[in-house]
Structures are given as C-alpha cells and as structure tokens.
C-alpha cells in the first residue's frame, strides 16, 4: 500500500508538472505558427491559441509510462494506446475540419486496443442489484463508450475553462469511486487524468490563453471512458458525467441529428451590451446546458462556468454515493 501511495504521489506530480511546464512553450509555438482562433465571448477581439491536446497527452503518457514501469499491466497499456489514438483523431480534426460522422467512427476504432489487449471484464455492475455478464454485448459497449465519452467532453468545451475544470472534478470523483469499489490499481492509473486537467485549467480558465481543441477534449474523454471500462465502473463514470451528458442530450434532442457545433446556424447564446452571456430567443437555436443556465437572466462567462462546476460537484457526489451502493445488495 505504501508503494502505491508513493507511486501515486510521483505520477500525480509528473502529470501536473509536465502539463504546467510544457503548456507555456506550446502556447508560444502555436502563436508563432498563427494557430489561433477567435474567442467570441470577449468584448475586445481576442485570439486564443489552439490546440492544447499535445501538452495534455504528454502529461498523461509521461505519468502512465512511469506507472507502467512500476506496475506493468494490460490495463495501463490500453489506457495509453486508446488515449493516444483518440488524440490523433482529435488532432486530425483540429488541423482539418472533418465530417460529423468521422469522429464517432474513428473514436470507435480507437477503442479496439481495449478489446485486443483483453483489458476488460464483460460484467456490467449496477448499484444495489449486482452485475450482469454480457460477453458479446460488452464488446459493443466498449466500442460505444469511447466515442460517447469523447464527444460528451468535446461538447461541453464551450466556454473558457469549462472542459478542463469539469474534467478535474469528474476525474477526481472517479478516482475516489475506484478506491471505494476496491479497484486500487485503476484508481492509481486515474490520478494523472485529474492532475493533467487541473494543470491545464491554469491556462484554460477565464481568460483562456489556450483552448484544448478537439485533440485535448477527445484525449480527456477517451481516457475517462477507458478508465471506466478497465476499472469496471461504467455506470458510476456515466453518473459523474451527467451534466455533460445532459448537454449532449439537450443538443441532440433539439437538433435531432449528429452535427458539429460549428454547423449550428442559430447560436444558443448571445451577448448583452455589457458583453454578458444571454440565452438566445431564437426558436431555431438548439437547447444547451449553457442556454438553460442563462434562462433566468444574463451571466458573465466566469459565472456560467461556476454554475457548471457546481453541477459537476453534485454529479460527483451522486457518483460517490453510487459507489457505496455497489457494496450493498438487495
């Protein structure tokens, strides 16, 4: 146990310091190559560098490789390979705009290493009622989870600091849940995700110096999804992600098809004269989490972010309660 604690501290520090140290250089390099996008929520025209995915992936790989040296396992290999593949999918999308269906399909393919390495247990565990063995169905579930988690995190990356801050809360909640259900090795492997997100938040929070881009958001989402599979906490992980799930659900149920955010014709959020965010009154605009938060009146970008973080904390609490319920049988 002491070994695990020391390694846990070491990989957490490596994950945090790698992203904290690399990101400023990445920002400079991206700015030099004019890889910038407009931040539409700023009163003064502001260009922000993108994508931050490379520093996020560097932090994850550096820490997971150290963990693998001390505790080699197929689960850690699956985490590293699937996360890297998801990064490549996102990076391709960052460089060249790809079709709406390309990302889900490519992310589904990213999940294949989990199956090929056999880093899964085909049981789906439910709170209070036990688990069900679904050998064939579980393969489909693996291929389903990675694109869904990746795109769910990508879809909540709408305001400064939201995706990284949200992932920080969800990831640490997942680590706590994994400890509660006694999956200590995967709990250890999940630590870098929280620390990488936290370090990236430093540069992503209002006012953002860098955006994660698709490469960053898909990397975070795919790693979260892989952890949920190899840690056998699929339901718990989904609960911790409920605010982001709601955002995707609201969006899909209002546009009724899979499209990219950039394809939306009517913006769900507009600006007031003092450049606060305000819910659009355009009936053709999609319903999103941010639009609902703003339904009672305008807020600043930072205030909306904090409402989303409070929702994330609430879901994290529900996920932790669910973990305790896994130990109870009716």
């Amino acid at each position, binding site marked *: 146990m002491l070994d695990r604690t020391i390694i846990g501290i070491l990989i957490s520090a490596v994950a945090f310091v790698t992203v904290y140290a690399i990101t400023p250089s990445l920002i400079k390099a991206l700015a030099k190559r004019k890889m910038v996008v407009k931040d539409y929520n700023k009163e003064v025209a502001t260009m922000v560098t993108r994508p931050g995915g490379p520093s996020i992936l560097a932090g994850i790989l550096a820490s997971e490789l150290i963990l693998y040296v001390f505790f080699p396992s197929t689960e850690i290999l699956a985490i590293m390979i699937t996360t890297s593949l998801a990064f490549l999918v996102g990076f391709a999308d960052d460089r060249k705009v790809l079709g709406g269906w390309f990302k889900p399909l490519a992310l589904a393919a990213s999940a294949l290493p989990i199956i090929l390495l056999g880093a899964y247990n085909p049981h789906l565990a439910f709170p209070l009622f036990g688990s069900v063995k679904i050998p064939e169905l579980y393969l489909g579930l693996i291929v389903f989870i990675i694109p869904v988690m990746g795109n769910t995190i990508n879809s909540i990356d709408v305001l400064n600091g939201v995706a990284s801050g949200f992932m920080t809360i969800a990831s640490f909640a997942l680590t706590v849940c994994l400890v509660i259900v006694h999956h200590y090795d995967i709990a250890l492997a999940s630590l870098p995700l929280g620390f990488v997100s936290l370090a990236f938040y430093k540069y992503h929070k209002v006012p953002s110096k860098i955006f994660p881009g698709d490469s960053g958001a898909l990397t975070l989402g795919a790693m979260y999804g892989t952890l949920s599979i190899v840690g056998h906490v699929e339901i718990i992980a989904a609960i911790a992600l*409920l*605010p982001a799930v709601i955002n995707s659900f609201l969006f899909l*149920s209002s546009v009724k098809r899979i499209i990219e955010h950039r394809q939306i014709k009517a913006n769900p959020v507009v600006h007031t004269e003092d450049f606060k965010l305000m*819910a659009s009154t355009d009936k053709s605009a999609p319903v999103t989490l941010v639009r609902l938060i703003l339904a009672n009146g305008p807020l600043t970008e930072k205030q909306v972010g904090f*409402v989303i973080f*409070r*929702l994330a904390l609430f879901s994290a609490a529900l996920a932790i309660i669910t973990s305790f319920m896994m130990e109870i049988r009716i």
Partner: protein
Amino acid sequence: MRGTPIFFYIFVMWLLIIAGGALIVPIIAHISIQGFGKLDTLIDSLVKAAIALVLVIIWILIMSKIKNWIFHKQISH
C-alpha cells in the same frame, strides 16, 4: 439558486439509472433462451440486446418528457 431545475433533472436521471439496474439485473439478465443448439448463446444475446435497446429508447423518451416538464418555462421563453 441558479440552475436548480438542472440539479433536479440530474437527480431524476440518477434515479432512472438505479431503476434501470432494478430491471436489468434481476429480470432481464435471468432470461435464458434454449432450444436452438449452438445458436443458443447468440440468440440469447440478441434478445437481451433488443430488450436493452428498447429500455434505452424508453429511458430517452422519459428523459425527454421530464425535460419538457421541468424546463417548459425556460424553453418557451
């Protein structure tokens, strides 16, 4: 507090997930289809997958109804 209906919506979603477990584990998981020889496992899985799919669709419909009910005011605005 800002976003109170969303907190409520998350809570309802959580309850529905728990309720889903109550249906899937004690009832659907115990369904056993036999009499097709070597195809038993495949047909058993397909039937369970079909039931799971129907449950997911019902879950989405319920969430959609609850969404309209909870957020009716906001959406109509």
